[in-house]
């Protein structure tokens, strides 16, 4: 009886993850009504760019790497690109030779070659795309790890092997795309509402303070501290019935210190939302480090 030939799988191995590495794509849409967060890349423009550089559709799954430190080993020939926060990248040959390579451009690895990300000097997250994309099982239309809900693959562990999809288009042969260094002071617009009327002078209060990014920030939310927002007297101590939330919502708990909901944030919440940051501006916040500052432009 002929035995079934195992289908050879194209794969890469993450020999070292660094502080936190997760599989990510553009997230799951259309399930918020059953409590499923959007999830997906916190800096989607960076993931899209990485995919374009290796010749993938922009929504293919790649890696989101916190602070760098990841090492990838190619089992087969694969084109990779690292984007997001600027990061030193090193290529290691099969014979142990090594050289520095550019981030933000396509790099080809042959079987047995490795790529190592150094430590980020500025910003918080970089993205790594592989030609063909990461072919981990999708859940609810997305391969993203959702750290709040436990959907998608678990966060990566040293030695994880990741299957690759079939590469389609040719990678970009362009030189490195200009890298913007994430600033230590990020300015973002905030559209006031829906609950700006719960707060005294919400525009003035948001504009008037520099907000410092707290160390408890994560993929669920960015915790800020500054001059506390205060409620108008008629809303003082009033409890808000649970409301729907979206990434970008600036929720203000009783402490008056805002929390910006990010991709893995829950779909409902019990504190008033003073304003919402447009999706296009959230990528900059995803690169803000604890201790960095945020300036709001209310509109």
């Amino acid at each position, binding site marked *: 009886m002929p035995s079934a030939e195992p289908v050879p799988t194209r794969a890469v191995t993450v020999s070292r993850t660094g502080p936190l590495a997760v599989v990510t794509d553009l997230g799951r*849409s*259309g*399930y*918020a*009504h*059953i*409590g*499923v967060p959007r999830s997906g890349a916190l800096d989607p423009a960076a993931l899209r760019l990485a995919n374009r550089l290796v010749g993938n559709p922009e929504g293919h799954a790649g890696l989101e790497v916190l602070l760098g430190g990841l090492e990838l080993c190619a089992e087969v020939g694969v084109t990779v690109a690292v984007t997001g926060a600027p990061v030193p990248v090193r290529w290691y040959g099969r014979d142990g030779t090594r050289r520095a390579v550019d981030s933000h451009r396509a790099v080809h690895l042959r079987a047995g070659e490795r790529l190592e990300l150094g430590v980020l000097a500025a910003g918080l997250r970089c993205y790594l795309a592989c030609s063909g994309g990461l072919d981990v099982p999708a*859940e*609810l239309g997305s391969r993203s790890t959702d750290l709040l*809900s*436990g*959907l998608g693959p678990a966060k990566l562990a040293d030695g994880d092997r990741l299957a690759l999809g079939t590469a389609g288009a040719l990678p970009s042969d362009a030189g490195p795309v200009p890298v913007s260094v994430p600033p230590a002071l990020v300015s973002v617009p905030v*559209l*006031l*509402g*829906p*609950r700006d009327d719960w707060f005294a002078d919400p525009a003035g209060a948001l504009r008037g303070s520099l907000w410092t990014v707290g160390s408890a920030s994560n993929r669920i939310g960015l915790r800020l501290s500054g001059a506390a927002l205060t409620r108008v007297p008629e809303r003082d101590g009033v409890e808000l*019935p*649970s*409301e*729907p939330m*979206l990434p*970008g*919502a600036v929720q203000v708990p009783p402490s008056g210190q805002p929390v910006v909901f990010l991709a893995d944030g*829950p*779909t*409902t919440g019990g504190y008033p*939302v003073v304003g*919402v*940051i*447009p*999706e*296009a501006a959230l990528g900059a916040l995803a690169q803000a480090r604890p201790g960095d500052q945020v300036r709001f432009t209310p509109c």
Partner: protein
Amino acid sequence: MSRAVRLLRFGPSGLLVELPSTAEVAAAYRTLCTARKDGRLTGVTELVPAARTVLVEVAGGGPVPVELIRAMLTDPPAPDAADPDAADQPAELLIPVHYDGADLDLVARTAELSVAEVVKLHSSAEYTVAFCGFAPGFGYLIGLPQTLRQARLDDSRPSVPAGSVAVAGEFSAVYPRSSPGGWRLLGHTDVVMFDPAADPPARLAPGDRVRFEPVR
């Protein structure tokens, strides 16, 4: 039928519809779902009900068809649209429950009832999923009898087992997976409430009807 509808901006691509009661939220949610299904509300990525509000989010950063939505929610419904249930019957789920929860005695004492009476009350009421949140597949069920409406525990448990059937405030719920939680636990069910590989992934969606049945 007139509804006191407030429309509030929720970023460049979102609109929060505020209504006076959970029942009116349910009606508005049905209206918007039907409109989306019929192709009268295009480009909507999320329709999310909560306790007093429904969020409408459109794709690609907006804009939201505010006036269209206002008209849908304030105009008297046409006669054949008056009963959206006729077109779209809500699902009904019967959930078998082992009433063996860690807080069953506490709930009975607080309500000044026997445990048997608590079980009878909880399992004879008819519930509706008002909204979901907290975790995938976690439905906030309304219809809880008055005497079972009790405060959350003073201290949350670090881990509530998956399948726990619980009450807090005006709601009852089933924990779809193990998580921290401060609701009072009445029992547990073996029904899998959320499975991303299933269709639909969540056993409960807003508007669904639910009953609990004691397992003997």
